[in-house]
């Protein structure tokens, strides 16, 4: 009967294409939107991923997410070092300040100050230059996207020349020199990222009473991280998070306090509804068009179970084709656009499963209506014209 079901489905070219287009559109929209959402959400904590080494981050108790900088006293580093089970603890500065471009315009940048001795928390990979060059007076390392983009020199003709090692720059009116170009994971804000030492960073920064953004901590081998966090919190009255906790806190903050999940859910719901509306409707109409033939098959001895399997097969075929095309189109779009822009796009297999489920739900709910109709069909209708 599968043979007859497929012939029926493919025989009605217009409806078949209509259903597949609806499902393609739905799975494209659902996959693409969730991939962008996943991409954006990963970016919220990409700084935490880049600074891979520390086990624990110590922050002011008021801090709600990674970019919510609330400075602490510099002495906090020493107090953390004193906690039992801490192998090392180093300061980390994160702030933003204005870089003056050669044409005199300003560009806001994220500045990261690394512990002068260890340079802990440096960029995940260098393009040119060496991390240790940061020790040179006024030395900074700039991320490649920023160097080629927002911080590039613009020649009179409009041509952009990327910032290079040896180029000088003013950071908050302080002289600095580029000693390296690095690559960082895209952050949520697309400002250029500038690395320097903790002491340079604090000297560049507008003078404030408190400057320490984070204390990053490595636990001694075999430590229970949660117990260590509790000891640190007791000793410092600050908040200590493991890296994964801090990622989750950040992620949940964005989820809760920004409109992003709503936008995302709206787009996904839209894709879902369009899928149901177009494909579900067309599929149902397809069944109605064929009702007379389903009735004929029933009269000729096709049991309800057979007809049910026929309709399910038809639904799964359009679902499979639509899903394949939609996911394919979403991936192609992600690769194409992602290669040219700094678009956030992540398509892990879990998302593929989620959109497969969504398409399956659309197909099965469309099929359910059709199945109901065909099950209730009286075979006697075959003699009525």
């Amino acid at each position, binding site marked *: *009967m599968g*043979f*007859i079901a497929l*012939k*029926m489905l*493919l*025989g*009605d070219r217009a409806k078949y294409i209509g259903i597949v287009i609806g499902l393609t559109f739905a799975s494209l929209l659902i996959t693409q939107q969730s991939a962008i959402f996943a991409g954006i959400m990963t970016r919220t904590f990409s700084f935490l991923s880049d600074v891979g080494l520390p086990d624990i981050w110590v922050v002011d108790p008021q801090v709600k997410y990674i970019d919510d900088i609330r400075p602490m006293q510099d002495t906090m580093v020493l107090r953390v070092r004193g906690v039992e089970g801490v192998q090392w603890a180093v300061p980390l500065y994160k702030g933003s300040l204005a870089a003056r471009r050669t044409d005199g315009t300003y560009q806001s940048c994220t500045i990261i100050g690394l512990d002068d001795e260890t340079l802990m928390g440096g960029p995940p990979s260098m393009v040119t230059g060496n991390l240790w060059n940061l020790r040179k007076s006024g030395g900074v390392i700039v991320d490649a996207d920023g160097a080629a983009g927002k911080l590039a020199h613009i020649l009179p003709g409009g041509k952009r020349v990327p910032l290079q090692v040896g180029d000088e720059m003013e950071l908050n009116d302080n002289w600095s020199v580029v000693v390296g170009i690095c690559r960082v994971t895209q952050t949520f804000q697309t400002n250029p990222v500038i690395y320097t030492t903790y002491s340079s960073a604090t000297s560049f920064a507008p003078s404030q009473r408190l400057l320490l953004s984070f204390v990053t901590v490595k636990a001694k081998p075999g430590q229970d991280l949660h117990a260590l966090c509790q000891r640190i919190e007791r000793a410092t009255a600050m908040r200590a998070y493991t890296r994964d906790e801090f990622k989750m806190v950040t992620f949940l903050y964005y989820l809760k306090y920004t409109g992003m999940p709503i936008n995302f859910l709206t787009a996904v719901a839209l894709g879902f509804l369009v899928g149901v509306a177009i494909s579900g409707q067309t599929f149902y109409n397809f069944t109605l068009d064929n009702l*007379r*033939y389903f009735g*004929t*098959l*029933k*009269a*000729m*001895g*096709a*049991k*309800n*179970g*057979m007809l049910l399997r026929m309709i399910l097969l038809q639904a799964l075929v359009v679902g499979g084709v639509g899903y394949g095309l939609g996911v394919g189109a979403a991936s192609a779009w992600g690769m194409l656009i992602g290669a040219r822009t700094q678009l956030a796009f992540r398509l892990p297999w879990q998302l593929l499963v989620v959109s497969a489920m969504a398409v399956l739900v659309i197909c099965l709910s469309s099929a359910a209506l059709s199945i109901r109709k065909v099950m209730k069909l*009286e*075979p*006697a209708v*075959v*003699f*009525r*014209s």
Partner: protein
Amino acid sequence: MTASNNGTPKQVEVAVRCDGLTKTFGTGNAAVKALRGVDLEVRNGELLMLVGPSGCGKTTLISVIAGVLRRDGGDCTVFAQDYNRMSEDETTSFRGVNIGFVFQAFNLIPSLTTAENVATPLIINGMKPTAAVSQASKILVEVGFDDRMVRSFPQDLSGGQQQRVAIARSLVHQPRLIVCDEPTSALDGETGHKVMELMRRLGRAENRALVVVTHDSRIFEFADRIAEMEDGRITQVVDSPSKLKAMSNQVV
């Protein structure tokens, strides 16, 4: 045609027996008594025509006989089996094995080729599509189709050709009862004549009964017996061809 095989019990000659068969559609004021006590016997090997004015219950009667509609009262056995003692699925399976259908509007599936349409009853009964299609092609040769027509689609065929395909489909699985509702009324006289000729030539067999509902007096000559219906009852059954003319003048 009435001679039975040696040793075959006498009642096997009777394919369908209806006694006091009733069927009412709707309830209350809107109730329509379509069948008001039908007594009828259809014999193996015969082609019985069911005639009568519009609305007298012909279609309802063959629907009950073919097992696509449940009766309300009376008795009805088909090859000594009673649909009322079968489940829905058993009834459906019974139809799949024992009954062939021919419809006024042909009811061929447009996206299937001629051969695939004819193969449908075999596929429903569990045969693999390739085997079913090749068996279907053979019977299509018998109804006068060539290779090209076997692979064509219903919409490319004339009405007469489509009804020949439908007849092939009703026969392909060798059912014991074939029911036809107005098989010629969508066709012109000459084509209808040819279709009935084919029906009789291929369909009539010693162990098979054919019931043909018709308005068309021009095809009465193909009947072995003619049952006249009026107002939900069988009023007369004639079995001699000489009476056909006289009756057709009265009824139609």
